[in-house]
């Protein structure tokens, strides 16, 4: 038994077995999800017309507001494309997403993991970034045929490269094991960072796409006795409340990684032509 523990922990020999057997446990999470589904069904079925009308009106108003914002966005997106062409940078492509539903939460209080209802059947893969409506939630760590496990950014074994949205200062945000706080690692004492700053994913390490909100800085402590700042940030995603998650499939190729800003002129010229051709196909999406 001890041998098994050690082999499992320090080698990856048991991983294939675990992935195969993971299918066996999906039904358990589906069973525990039944009360939620019944409750959803009840809410959908036994609802008065008046409530539906109110909700409908509210949604219509909200749609109107979003449509107004979208009108501005279209012109801004066009302007962004023109500016990026001026900068010889290729255009950022839109990521496609797949909606997943949360079906379980890891029972282990020391780890922050959730189980979702998408697996290899839907194209989910190990290392895939996961969002909710408010920000980055985490990444897929185990995949079986029709469910997968997501490690949340607040888990104490998780770290994510971020940058401050205001000035582009880069850092690593580590989970602390507390749902409501991340801590920034190795931020030197003269760094321009303050409470209220938005941290977005920086795209370093090619794991997470660039520019999704990760956390908001809550508190910056400058302790002269310590080599680095203590920076505490609060995750933007509602890690313990969101039930509908988005799995991100990145559509960008290597040339559109932000590092590509420095590529030689000949290659960037070709990337402009490719981006302008793709912009026509992207026109519908924008």
């Amino acid at each position: 038994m001890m041998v098994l523990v050690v082999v499992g922990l320090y080698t990856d020999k048991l991983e294939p077995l675990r992935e195969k057997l993971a299918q066996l446990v999906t039904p358990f999470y589906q069973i525990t999800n039944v009360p939620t589904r019944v409750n959803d069904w009840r809410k959908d079925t036994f609802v008065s017309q008046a409530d539906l009308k109110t909700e409908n009106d509210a949604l219509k108003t909200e749609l109107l507001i979003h449509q107004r914002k979208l009108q501005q966005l279209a012109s801004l997106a066009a302007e962004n494309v023109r500016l990026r062409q001026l900068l010889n940078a290729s255009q950022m492509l839109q990521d496609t997403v797949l909606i997943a539903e949360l079906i379980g939460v890891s029972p282990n209080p020391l780890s922050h993991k959730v189980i979702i209802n998408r697996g290899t059947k839907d194209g989910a893969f190990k290392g895939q970034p996961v969002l909710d409506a408010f920000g980055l939630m985490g990444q897929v760590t185990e995949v079986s045929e029709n469910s997968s496990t997501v490690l949340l950014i607040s888990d104490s074994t998780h770290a994510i490269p971020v940058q401050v949205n205001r000035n582009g200062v880069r850092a690593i945000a580590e989970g602390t094991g507390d749902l409501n706080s991340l801590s920034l690692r190795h931020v030197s004492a003269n760094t321009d960072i303050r409470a209220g700053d938005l941290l977005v994913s920086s795209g370093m390490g090619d794991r997470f796409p660039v520019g999704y909100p990760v956390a908001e800085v809550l508190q910056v402590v400058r302790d002269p006795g310590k080599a680095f700042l203590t920076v505490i940030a609060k995750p933007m995603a509602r890690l313990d409340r969101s039930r509908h998650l988005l799995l991100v499939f990145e559509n960008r190729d290597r040339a559109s990684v932000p590092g590509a800003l420095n590529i030689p002129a000949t290659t960037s010229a070709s990337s402009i032509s490719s981006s302008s051709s793709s912009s026509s196909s992207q026109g519908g999406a924008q």
Partner: protein
Amino acid sequence: MPSQSLNLYLIIALSVFVALVLSVYPLPMDMRWWRPEFVLVVAIYWMFFMPLTVSFFFLCALGLFQDLLEGVPFGQHSLGLVIVGYICILSYQRVRNFSIWRQSAWIFVLVGIAQLTDNWVQGMAGRPLSGIQFLYPALTSALLWPPCSLWLDRLTHRHHH
């Protein structure tokens, strides 16, 4: 006679299944510390009252399945189950004569031992160790013992008579 033992196996399987489902039933993050070790409590019940029916192989397999289910390192729960199972085999004759509250106290100790091994494996996996919180499940498991054992008693005695 064969139908009776078949019934017994069915009850064991059913109780273990219910315990496994309860062990992953979603709870709010802060409440998860208080979740009783359902699988362990049910396994201890069967070790105490059917020590010849429940084998160590079964305990190992059950523990491995629980590891898989909860997504923890392989061997964590089976280690705890086997150690506790051994103590149960040594002590079941005395424990059967205890009053239910003394049994509860004994369950607290047994689950506490299993939590220690759990914590040890989690520590090796690089998780930060918790404080006294790791004993909360032992406490709730001890509180779960009276209703759980009475309920399982009723289920099995119904088939004995």
